[in-house]
């Protein structure tokens, strides 16, 4: 079976690089074709990368607390760019401080993300979910 392609990056003015490297490494080892656009990446870069590489999923990381602002409109922008039904995941420390997770989860779901991860999510969880969602 063909390798599934995932676009990976850290959104906005966020320069936390460690988690991104770990995700890149683990997802590659798990058999995904990882297109890593790295830190400090605006939404358009995720979307453009997904178009050219015909990606199956976009994995957005946000660590520095401004995730909600940076991710706003992302689903609409994907639709606009012709990326119909692409999987959108988000994880890291996606909001400022300690907020009620259920509310945060619901807000990001509303924004059109398929999966929303709390801080400290293990890589195994995301690999498992990706396999389930992409059917391989």
């Amino acid at each position, binding site marked *: 079976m063909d390798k599934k*392609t995932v676009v990976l990056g850290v959104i906005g*003015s966020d*320069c936390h690089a460690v988690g991104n490297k770990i995700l890149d490494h683990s997802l590659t080892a798990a058999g995904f*074709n990882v*297109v890593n*656009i*790295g*830190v*400090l*990446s605006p939404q*358009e*870069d995720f979307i*453009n*990368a997904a*178009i*050219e*590489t*015909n*990606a199956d999923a976009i994995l957005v990381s946000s660590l*520095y607390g401004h995730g909600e602002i940076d991710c706003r409109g992302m689903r609409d922008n994907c639709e606009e760019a012709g990326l119909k039904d692409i999987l959108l995941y988000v994880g890291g420390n996606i909001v400022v401080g300690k907020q009620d997770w259920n509310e945060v989860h619901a807000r990001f779901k509303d924004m059109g993300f398929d999966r929303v991860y709390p801080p400290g999510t293990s890589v195994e969880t995301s690999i498992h979910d990706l396999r389930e969602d992409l059917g391989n």
Partner: protein
Amino acid sequence: MDCYLFIDFGSTYTKVTLVDIAKEEIVATAKSYTTVETDVTTGYNEASRKLFSKVGQEVNIVKKLACSSAAGGLKIVAIGLVPELTAEAAKRAAIGAGARVIKTYSHNLNSSELVEIKISNADMILLAGGTDGGNSDCIIHNAEMIAKHEIDIPVVVAGNKSCNDEITNIFGDTVEFYITENVMPSLNNINVVPARETIRNIFMKQIVHARGMENVEESISGILMPTPASVLKAAETLSLGTKDEEGIGDLAIVDIGGATTDIHSIGEGAPSKPGVFLRGLEEPVAKRTVEGDLGMRYSSTSVYEAAGNRMMKKYLNIDDYDLEEEFRKRNDNTSFLPENEKDIFFDEAMAKVCADISMKRHAGIVESVYSPLGTIHSQTGKDLMELPYIIGTGGVLVNSKEPANILEAVTFTIDDPESLKPRNPKFMIDKEYILSAMGLLAMVDKNMAVRMLKKYIVMCGGNTNGFEK
């Protein structure tokens, strides 16, 4: 004496350069004015006549090689998928091949865009789209459209490799096409050399059959490439050297011509300071940019538009001139040669504007991202801050008494703090006007080209560390 003869068919001049092979010396150079209307043969014969009248001894020409930018040069239409990605990569590959990119298209093309391409007068189409194994719908759609509209222009296919078989079927016998490596094989990685070489090969095969070239073709061994490609080749040769001859390292060439200003930079352009993140499409080591609105004659009125009074003031006492009139004069009379002080001064001020703006467009930028921990930086494009050499060429620089003063305009200034322009380079000048000839020489004897470039490209100022000026 055994010699090579190099010919440069230009849009304003046909230049010939005679090189003594044993001594590795320029025997003589000559040029003759050519216009779009005149036959290239006339210019060539006239220039040769002048050249040999200077030589006055028996010459055995071992090889005659030419480059050409006559009749508007090589014109290419670039097609890609995302404007900032494969479309941009295709455009850069075409410019690096010495072409003028008429227009860049992206995403799935529609019928009216194909009609536009059909009547565009382009010499070639560069078709890209998708990384290897990535998007295939777009390039296939665009190939189908090209076939359907029976476009009679050779197509260089440089996209997603997984589509090559299907595109071969689509084009069949109806479209002339050449398949080469993807200009962007994986995201943000640029691969322009194979496309560049393919374009050059087609140019060599086809361009010589056009526009009166067949008359001169018999007497020369071949038109190897478009002139800008030849200059880029010379730049690469001088910078990188060969395994026998050492190059001089990173450099940029500033070529101010009658119609355009070209910048060729050789170097990775990696961040010169620590802690800077790189963004966007990777830069080719040998990068050419061409500014169609910055030229000394054919585009002099657009120089004024680009500069405005404020920038003109930086280089000229504008109260001494009727600016509009000065620019128009040069535009209307493209063979105008400045003779008095005042006209020379104006030409040189114009050249400074061309140098200033074209380097600003060529060099990368660094942007600050503020965080509670202080500032972090992201860089797009090449960092040329620590670039050691700037080489000037083109009529206005070659003929200037103080070319370093003009070249100074490419350097970093504090009023443009985001730009990664060279800070303190050494200035060199192509005094004998031989860069394009040396690019041709590099095709036959690269070691000799390195040695001759080192001999004939001479220091003219800059980087004096404050000791002399």
